[in-house]
């Protein structure tokens, strides 16, 4: 068959979700942020909750997430997104409320907010993008930076004596009775993307009930910070990040 014969509306199997607008995203080529934004948009569209969803954006590369998904957003101060989300959800319990945070936002400056929102069991979704580095400010060490990993503030590799260990924030959060669903996913292959989308869907479905927080970590790449091509970043992630942050459910109640 010819291209003209195949490319017809009735043959459409996949396209950009409508909740994601046409604004070109500012992320670097190959950045996991774009994939996760797309999955969140697909879930919101499929659940028909565009008017019911409020997103809380972080400080980090995804500070401009509010430019790309056509839902209402609030921009939080660095690390404080779970606090905003707590108030939004408690004051408007019929809404779907999610935070979207990087590793500095969620596990460095925002540690207290993260732990306490989860401990209170807020009925929200926390999306945690873990690429082990501070992208926006130029590639500095994050709490989740791997031992030996080079960054702008660990130019010779992270040294545990000086800087401590990679912080297993997701494991800590899973220990709390307030969380009901804690999972780790990735988006580096089509199969992984499908599983990650299912996890995000489950998290949003969970938040209809009042049984606690859903926490979805996406182990991700940062081509610019890691100084690798997107394809090589995925390989490096598989070989290194997955050892420290294994994919799978930590809790599913």
């Amino acid at each position, binding site marked *: *068959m010819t*291209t003209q*014969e*195949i*490319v*017809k509306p009735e*043959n*459409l*199997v*996949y*396209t*950009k*979700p409508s909740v*994601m607008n046409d604004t*070109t*995203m500012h*992320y*670097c*080529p*190959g*950045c*996991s*942020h*774009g*994939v996760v934004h*797309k999955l969140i948009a697909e879930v919101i569209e499929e659940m028909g909750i565009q008017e019911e969803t409020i997103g809380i954006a972080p400080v980090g590369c995804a500070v401009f997430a509010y430019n790309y998904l056509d839902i209402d957003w609030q921009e939080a101060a660095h690390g404080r997104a779970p606090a905003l989300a707590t108030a939004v959800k408690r004051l408007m319990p019929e809404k779907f409320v999610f935070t979207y945070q990087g590793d500095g936002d969620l596990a460095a400056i925002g540690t207290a907010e993260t732990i306490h929102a989860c401990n209170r069991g807020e009925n929200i979704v926390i999306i945690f993008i873990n690429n082990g580095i501070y992208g926006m400010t130029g590639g500095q060490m994050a709490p989740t930076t791997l031992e030996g990993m080079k960054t702008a503030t660990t130019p010779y590799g992270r040294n545990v004596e000086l800087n401590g260990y990679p912080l297993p924030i997701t494991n800590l959060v899973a220990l709390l009775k307030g969380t009901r669903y804690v999972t780790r996913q990735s*988006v*580096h*292959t*089509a199969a992984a*993307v*499908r599983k990650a989308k299912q996890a995000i869907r489950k998290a949003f479905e969970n938040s209809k009930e009042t049984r606690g927080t859903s926490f979805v970590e996406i182990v991700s790449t940062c*081509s610019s910070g890691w100084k690798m*091509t*997107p*394809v090589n970043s*995925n390989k490096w992630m598989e070989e290194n990040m997955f050892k420290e942050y294994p994919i799978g459910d930590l809790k599913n109640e």
Partner: protein
Amino acid sequence: MAKIEGRIVVNNERCKGCELCVVACPTNALALSKHVNNKGYNYAYMLHEEACIGCANCGSVCPDACITVYKVKNS
């Protein structure tokens, strides 16, 4: 026997040439073009369009939602 044929349409200007779709394609149908878009990126294109099975792996992994996938099943 039913044969599945697919095609993709890439938004060339939105594409950043990250090559993740090329790697994700199970039939090696894609490649980065020698041409560049307005931002200077070598956008992805169908090198072997007849090899496409419309699986949408490319669309799934694309970080910029540039890819629209079509599929026809014919006997």
